[in-house]
């Protein structure tokens, strides 16, 4: 193995233009992966700044800092940026960096398309962020842009919103096609389907979900655009349309979308836990089947977001049972992770800490999801802070924690240096405590009836909200430690070995650290 790699070492510094052109013209999967990850981090802080505005406003009851219309823009754009700008590009960045190295491929299959799918993304978000400075402000109808809020009652920034979502969608679809073609065509000889690392498997399934549902999102935003500007009536009852139809089409995209944001996280945790438990993953095959069944079921549950639209009992029951069924494969995964750790020689470096927090806190988010799936109970919980608590547990302590875990796990491979373990532990403990201060009490205010997306609230929620806001500010500040760790690690530090972690197994740990610019130009031998 290492002989093959050193053979190519003298070529590494070739074909790499200097300065900004390297990044503009690059077709190298590692460069593009890095750009995706840096872009996601910047978006995470922009979206996070908006969350800080929201929490500052909600620190006390009454109107404190911002106008209600601006508050609504903050909740809307915070959601859009975190979903499409932070979580999804971060996963695509990880896919770009790791998938070719994990399957022994020299690069992604379609490198030029790869460059393009990244470089249209900054423009999508530039358009979205610029819309905030338009007269009347940016989109303020919630990230779910329900009609008629986004058609009849929205401002002209809606057009910019629609175009930016179109661009994000095209970028995701191209990225997904690239991942699928790479995995289908570029696996090293001997890398059979059931030998692929689970991160590769989960991303393959995610990529199929992306090409199935992102076009539906593109369709529904197009309908919003034509309803608003070109006189169609897809969602306008006066012209024979139906606003409830909007919710059906949106959630047909929206529910698989939440699995797009969590399946790669399952893959990351399935890579990290065996490394630090020093045991192979328990139930590899069942993990693959569980991931596939979650993906298939995700197409049958969309209307559980719409129980209060006046659905007939038969429909509500169908969607309720299908939703609960998803708990089965998800439970298989959680039990497999726990069984992997059972009697393992565990150590608790930062990636493992974040992975462990993921398992516990994601499961809490999963349980509140089960509560929301119960139709009669959902009538109480719908559109309250309970829902906000639920999806932040699965997305922040779920998806975001897994991305942070992945960053710590592979950072030595990317930079060639070990990160500062002590600072990393500080980052973990500060994040863990503050994130629970931030989101756990939201369950209670939600059950007590505090509605989401409202800049003011009844006095009895004041103490809880002040506490939640403090947790929010602390969580925001904790992420600055992360940036500190990243910068420090990129600049220098203890040299990392090729294997980096004692228990790490897989092709990516057989190339030197930092990974050379070109890897596996000759396919590796799979044991």
């Amino acid at each position: 193995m290492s002989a093959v790699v050193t053979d190519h070492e003298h070529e590494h510094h070739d074909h790499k233009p200097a300065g900004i052109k390297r990044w503009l013209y690059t077709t190298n999967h590692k460069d593009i992966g890095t750009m995706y990850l840096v872009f996601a981090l910047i978006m995470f802080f922009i979206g996070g700044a908006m969350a800080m505005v929201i929490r500052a406003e909600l620190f006390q009851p009454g109107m404190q800092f911002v106008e209600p219309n601006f508050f609504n823009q903050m909740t809307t754009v915070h959601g859009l940026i975190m979903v499409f700008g932070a979580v999804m590009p971060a996963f695509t960045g990880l896919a770009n960096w790791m998938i070719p190295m994990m399957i022994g491929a020299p690069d992604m299959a379609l490198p030029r398309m790869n460059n393009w799918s990244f470089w249209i993304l900054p423009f999508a978000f530039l358009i979205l962020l610029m819309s905030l400075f338009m007269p009347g402000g940016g989109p303020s109808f919630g990230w779910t842009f329900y009609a008629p809020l986004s058609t009849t009652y929205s401002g002209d920034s809606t057009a910019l919103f629609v175009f930016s979502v179109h661009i994000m969608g095209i970028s995701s679809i191209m990225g997904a096609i690239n991942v699928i073609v790479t995995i289908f065509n570029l696996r090293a000889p001997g890398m059979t389907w059931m030998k692929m690392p689970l991160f590769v498997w989960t991303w393959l399934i995610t990529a199929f979900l992306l090409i199935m549902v992102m076009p539906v999102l593109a369709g529904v935003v197009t309908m919003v655009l034509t309803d608003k500007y070109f006189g169609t009536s897809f969602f306008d009852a006066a012209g024979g349309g139906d606003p409830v139809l909007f919710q059906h089409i949106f959630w047909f995209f929206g529910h698989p979308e939440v699995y797009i944001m969590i399946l790669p996280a399952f893959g990351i945790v399935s890579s990290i836990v065996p490394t630090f438990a020093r045991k192979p993953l328990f139930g590899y095959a069942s993990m693959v089947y569980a991931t596939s069944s979650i993906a298939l079921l995700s197409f049958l549950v969309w209307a559980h977001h719409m129980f209060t639209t006046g659905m007939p009992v038969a429909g509500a029951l169908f969607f309720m049972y299908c939703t609960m069924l998803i708990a089965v494969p998800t439970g298989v995964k959680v039990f497999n992770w726990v069984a992997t750790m059972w009697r393992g020689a565990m150590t608790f470096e930062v990636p493992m800490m974040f992975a462990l927090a993921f398992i516990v806190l994601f499961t809490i988010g999963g349980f509140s999801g089960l509560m929301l799936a119960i139709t009669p109970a959902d009538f109480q919980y719908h559109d309250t802070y309970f829902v906000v608590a639920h999806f932040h547990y699965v997305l922040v302590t779920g998806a975001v924690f897994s991305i942070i875990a992945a960053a710590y796990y592979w950072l030595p491979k990317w930079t060639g240096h070990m990160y500062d373990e002590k600072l990393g532990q500080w980052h973990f403990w500060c994040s863990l405590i503050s994130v629970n201060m931030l989101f756990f009490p939201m369950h209670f205010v939600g059950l007590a009836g505090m509605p989401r997306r409202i800049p003011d609230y009844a006095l009895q929620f004041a103490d809880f909200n002040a506490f939640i806001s403090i947790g929010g500010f602390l969580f925001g500040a904790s992420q600055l430690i992360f940036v500190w760790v990243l910068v420090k690690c990129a600049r220098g530090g203890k040299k990392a070995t090729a294997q980096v972690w004692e228990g790490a197994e897989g092709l990516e740990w057989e190339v030197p650290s930092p990974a050379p610019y070109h890897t596996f130009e000759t396919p590796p031998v799979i044991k």
Partner: protein
Amino acid sequence: MALKHKSLTFKLAVIALAMFGFGFALVPLYDVFCDLTGLNGKTAVTAASADAALIDTSREVVIEFIARPNKEMPWVFKPEVRRMTVHPGEIHIMNYLAENPTGRMIVGQAVPSVSPGQAALYFHKIECFCFTQQQLAGGKNMLMPLQFYVDPALPSQFSTITLSYTLYDVTSAWTGDAAASSQLGE
């Protein structure tokens, strides 16, 4: 190798394009699904035949009438009575009062919805002002008739049916009666 990439990329791009089309196909599919099942309270916008089945005098069903103009619609719009008790199979006529308090001609279109949704399949309109667009000159008023019956096959758990009309201002899209009725007949 490159050919292999191209053919797979092409297939995946076709899936993506097909799914874009599927998003739009959901619009008619949704209507068909609601029409077939009566879900979502969608009722037929074409006339039912008047040859009703036997009148079931052993059973009474309460029909509640709700009518409201949409926010942008200046008409006054209300039913003559709020509720009516009927036997399944009996044909009844119900009048709605419309008044245009503005000084200009306005065209209205009423959109019906029946609740509970499952009962929508059993509520038949023989003649309805909602089948066509209604034109009313400024300052005038009129009675708009609805002729209906409840299907005797209505499942026994339904004892009350609510019929709700929302009236929209469609003056800007008005193209004359002929075009309007053919548009609604589809």
